[in-house]
């Protein structure tokens, strides 16, 4: 009798534990499996799901992009199922491993997506019609190192530049600076008049690297030429262009708000949109937020060049793409969607719905948003390049080295904080690269 009771209670305990574990183990299938159920297995209407980190864009996908596709493909219904940006990579990996990920996978640029392709989670898209509407630079972020396989359809890039408060510029009759000299002259005028000339903080570190170093740097290292030279090992971070870039950042710090060392990214954004700072070095992704928050006239100008007449270079960074889950149950429908993403219709829809995220396709499109249009026009006047730390060079941590991107954050912030000299920054970055990167 006693044994039976013991056995039963053990069973109860075990079943309770199983019940507790159960939901956690079966939580993931929001994607394909739910979708198949929805289609009722009749094979008529198919639902495909998009994995994405762009939860900000949920309504844009639901109200504008997906309806446009569904109107043309009545038998396919598309669900946009985003995850929080910071969790996306981890959640996606787990879902792919568990076979519960959606049919369409939004691709991060370079190694994160390359790793997914190498693990056979992403399908090759070499034979997708329409991919020839994209340039090689556009595809470079989603291609194998040898250039043989493309695995994501490029969607959008972001362009770096400077936002400024037009009202304040008019007040002191300033004009958009084009050269280094003009830029610092504008800053001086603003400072003399008691304004905060330049808005930025170094607390989050990435601003110093992304919005500082990668923003103005291409004009010194001559865009793609300099970036490729680093990859080939013929240029070093201790070379003049890089030291000069850090030198500029060091000089910037005199024009930043008080206590910029503890100013975070949202602080800086608010400072600018409240009209308390005049020039904000950042990128096109700010457009919609700034247009909503700022109550003054806003203008933009591209990163300054060293001397008047120099070729200008802009960081036109490949940021987002879309790939196909290799294990999708609806490969045909998924491919149909990807093919539609290579069309001019999608390019216009997307770029207009998300001003500041520019299509990477070769179509000539016009945008409704004037600021976005101006950003886009720089592609005609300047040479495009991408952030130099993203392709291949940030693999150091996998090969007994340091991660270049993280190091750039660290040293650029330290230079702006005045705790590291530009020479030292160049030396530390180059030392980190020398350790593992053979061509260097």
């Amino acid at each position: 009798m006693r044994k039976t009771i013991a056995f039963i209670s053990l069973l109860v305990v075990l079943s309770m534990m199983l019940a507790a574990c159960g939901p956690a183990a079966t939580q993931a299938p929001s994607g394909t499996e739910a979708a198949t159920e929805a289609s009722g297995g009749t094979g008529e209407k198919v639902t495909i799901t998009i994995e994405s980190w762009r939860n900000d864009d949920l309504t844009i996908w639901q109200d504008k992009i997906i309806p446009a596709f569904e109107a043309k493909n009545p038998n396919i219904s598309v669900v946009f199922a985003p995850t929080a940006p910071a969790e996306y990579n981890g959640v996606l990996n787990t879902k792919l491993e568990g076979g519960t990920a959606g049919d369409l996978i939004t691709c991060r640029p370079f190694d994160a997506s390359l790793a997914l392709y190498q693990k056979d989670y992403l399908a090759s898209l070499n034979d997708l019609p329409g991919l020839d509407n994209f340039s090689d630079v556009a595809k470079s972020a989603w291609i194998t190192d040898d250039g043989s396989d493309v695995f994501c359809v490029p969607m959008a890039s972001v362009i770096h530049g400077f936002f400024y408060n037009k009202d304040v510029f008019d007040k002191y009759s300033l004009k958009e600076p084009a050269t280094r000299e003009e830029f610092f002259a504008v800053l001086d005028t603003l400072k003399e008049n008691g304004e905060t000339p330049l808005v930025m903080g170094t607390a989050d570190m990435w601003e110093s690297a992304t919005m500082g170093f990668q923003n103005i740097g291409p004009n010194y290292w001559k865009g793609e030429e300099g970036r490729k030279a680093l990859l080939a090992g013929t240029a070093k971070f201790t070379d003049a262009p890089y030291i000069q870039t850090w030198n500029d950042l060091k000089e910037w710090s005199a024009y930043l708000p008080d206590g910029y060392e503890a100013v975070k990214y949202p602080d800086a954004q608010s400072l600018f949109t409240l009209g308390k700072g005049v020039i904000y070095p950042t990128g096109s992704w700010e457009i919609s937020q700034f247009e909503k928050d700022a109550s003054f006239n806003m203008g933009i100008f591209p990163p300054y060049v060293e001397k008047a007449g120099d070729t200008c270079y802009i960081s036109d960074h490949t940021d987002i793409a879309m790939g196909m889950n290799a294990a999708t149950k609806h490969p045909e429908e998924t491919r149909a969607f990807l093919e539609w993403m290579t069309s001019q219709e999608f390019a216009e829809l997307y770029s207009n719905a998300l001003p500041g995220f520019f299509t990477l396709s070769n179509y000539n499109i016009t945008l409704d948003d004037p600021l976005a249009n101006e950003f886009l026009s720089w592609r005609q006047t300047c040479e495009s390049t991408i952030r130099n730390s993203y392709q291949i060079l940030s693999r150091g941590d996998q090969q007994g080295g340091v991660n270049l991107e993280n190091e750039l954050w660290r040293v650029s912030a330290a230079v702006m904080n005045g705790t590291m000299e530009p020479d030292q920054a160049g030396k530390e970055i180059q030392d980190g690269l020398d350790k593992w990167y053979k061509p260097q």
Partner: protein
Amino acid sequence: MYERKKFPSHILVFLAPAVIIYTIFMVYPLLNSLRMSFYTVTPDHREVFAGLDNYVNLFTNDIFAPRFWGALKNNFIFFAIHMVVQNSIALMLAALVANEHRRGANFYRTIYFMPTVLSVVIIGFIWNLILNPLWGVSKSILDVVHLGSLYQPWLGLAATALPTVALISVWQFIGIPLVLFYAALIAIPEELMEAATVDGATGWGVFWRIKFPLILPTVGIVSILTFVGNFNAFDLIYTMKGANAGPDYATDIMGTFFYRTFFGQQLQLGDPSMGATVAAMMFLIILTGVLLYMFVWQRRVQTFEM
């Protein structure tokens, strides 16, 4: 003849839930993590036994070593600040609120404990705002008393960031040692103090010669709790400074170092085996501390029956 008592098998039933859950969620992950620290993962995703390579890497490789020693040093500073500031202030406050003649003791006891029950995200957010150079109140408060020139962006400067974060953590957790000291202090029988007063002892003398020796065991417990808590700390720094623990790794402690190594950061991919190695070192450090406490402190300290 002595008859051996039958083993009471129902005990197993009652122990089972705890043992099973603890084994699945604590013991197994811990052992597996220790095992992982002796393996590396090859590019084709196979685990290969690596012996002590990961540890040698951690201590000597000029990429991991500066970060590891830096994080360890910062962690000891973090701990020292807690020991000196948190625990001494907590002891002082406990002595004050344990005095039943003092008015409002209950009120203060609640107030001091309040930050402890707040979410760390809220605390990080509040203090980020208070100390914010653009809209924080700390600058205006200093201005009011004409000390505005003393204001610094403390959270952003390499020299002050770690002490600042540590002091915020002190502010948050001071309630715990306070309550422990308080409980120990009110357990001391009144007669002892009365006798001492009759013998002519001052308040100061009573505290240091009677109360403090009697609560020494609690001092030990508080110290070891602080030690374990500080070497496992992560959340406050992650909330306030991010996983990169800037500026220039000035606020990097073992927890953030582990997080970056194991889960990766921005373009840096996670490295499970090196992460497990860092975790194993954290475990080892904490284990050493706890063993020292158990075998050195607990054996020496005198416990009095009251």
